[in-house]
């Protein structure tokens, strides 16, 4: 059984428009490397040159930010939902 990754609109251009992906991995890091393997264009938008998560993207396992858990080493269980949340700024124009 796999983990459900929710892709926000702003990053769907890098996943062939898919909003949800079923991926495998025991940690967030493994899950995201599975993502990067299947959709290589998304990787530079999620990680910087050192492999750290970019500071405008938050990753939540269920409702918890991995910043407040174990970062990329946070474990994920099959059936759980991981959500990518980039900052968006629209609203006035």
């Amino acid at each position, binding site marked *: 059984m796999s983990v459900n990754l929710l892709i926000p609109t702003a990053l769907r251009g890098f996943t062939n428009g898919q909003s949800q992906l079923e991926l495998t991995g025991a940690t967030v890091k493994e899950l995201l490397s599975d993502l990067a393997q299947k959709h290589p264009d998304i990787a530079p938008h999620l990680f910087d040159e050192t492999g750290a998560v970019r500071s405008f993207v938050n990753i939540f396992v269920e409702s*918890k930010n991995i910043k407040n858990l174990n970062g990329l080493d946070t474990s994920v269980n099959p059936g759980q939902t991981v959500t990518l949340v980039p900052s968006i*700024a629209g609203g*006035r*124009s």
Partner: protein
Amino acid sequence: MKSSDKPAPKEKSLPSLTPSEITRYSRHILLREVGVIGQKKLKAASVLVIGAGGLGSPLALYLAAAGVGKIGLVDFDLVEASNLQRQILHGTKDIDRPKVASARDRLLDLNPDIEVVTHNVKLSSQNAAKIFKKYDIVADGTDNFPTRYLINDVCVLEKKTNVYASIFQFEGQVTIFGAPDGPCYRCLYPAPPPPGLIPSCGEGGVMGVLPGVIGSLQALEVIKLIVGGGSPLIGRLLLFDALRVSFNELTVEKDPNCPICGQSPTIDAPIDYEEFCGLGPKNEDPAEPISAGELKDRIDKGDKLQVIDIREPHERVLCPFPGAKVVPFGQLARRMDEFSPNEDLIFICKIGQRSLHAIRALKRAGYPGRMLNLTDGLVAWAELDGGPAAIY
């Protein structure tokens, strides 16, 4: 509230309600959770609405209808026809008027008992604190990263609670920043995305009802903060996906290392937000420009060049560019082997902004050939005789 009830400590300083106000707000007053006291608190409150556009429209309309005593509006744009698909503060007759003037008329028509203050300026590091000081609560409904960081920082420094909302295409985010003990925008997003990754509403489109949903939630949170009670969205980020019709609630914690609200803050005054967001002059890597006229001449002459269209498929349907090679923005670096470095590449998009970022991205990826940016994009191209008839 009966006269025999013990008055709440704050009630003395609250304004009284006129008989016509009691009639107007009777559906609020009937709610136990609002009542006469809550309605008086609304009358005594002042809220600064930043942006009189998509989010600011339902937000300001509901605050005015609810009887918020003083509403400030910050915006410096004029009403355009393409705003009316979602900015319900403004009408067709308001096209070309300042948004704050149009908004003020609409709000006072809805509720003549309130005060509406207009700030027809671009919010800046110089003027923000002076404006914010005059209000109890700030509601951020702006549309760009530099202004969002500016609003956050000034709210933290001035100790103002910021009811935050943002939207993108079919998605919205709502939360409250800067509440006592609550997180701030920088706790959640320490830095903005690089320019070009996330297109603006003008380039990327937005479902017109979306700001209606999100701006209404923003109004609800403002009203709850004023009246008190309920569970405000402090430390909770609400996500809305209009396509799936799903709400998702995530936890946002205060970051002890936050540079402005953490334990050892390093920011004690507003900074240069354009530069912080990678938009300042220092960060500009100018791409070689080509005007629509020059491009047309070169195509007509049969010059050796390749036009690269980086727009999304639905945009190309609205305004095609015959003969262009189509490579979506996200695939550029990976597909640069498909370009031939010995002929000029001309990058095109709707307004010439995303194409500029495309050129920068390819330069960073090491593409060796000459790259030119079509100045003002397809909008300029459409203005040429013989260009496509309509722009979207």
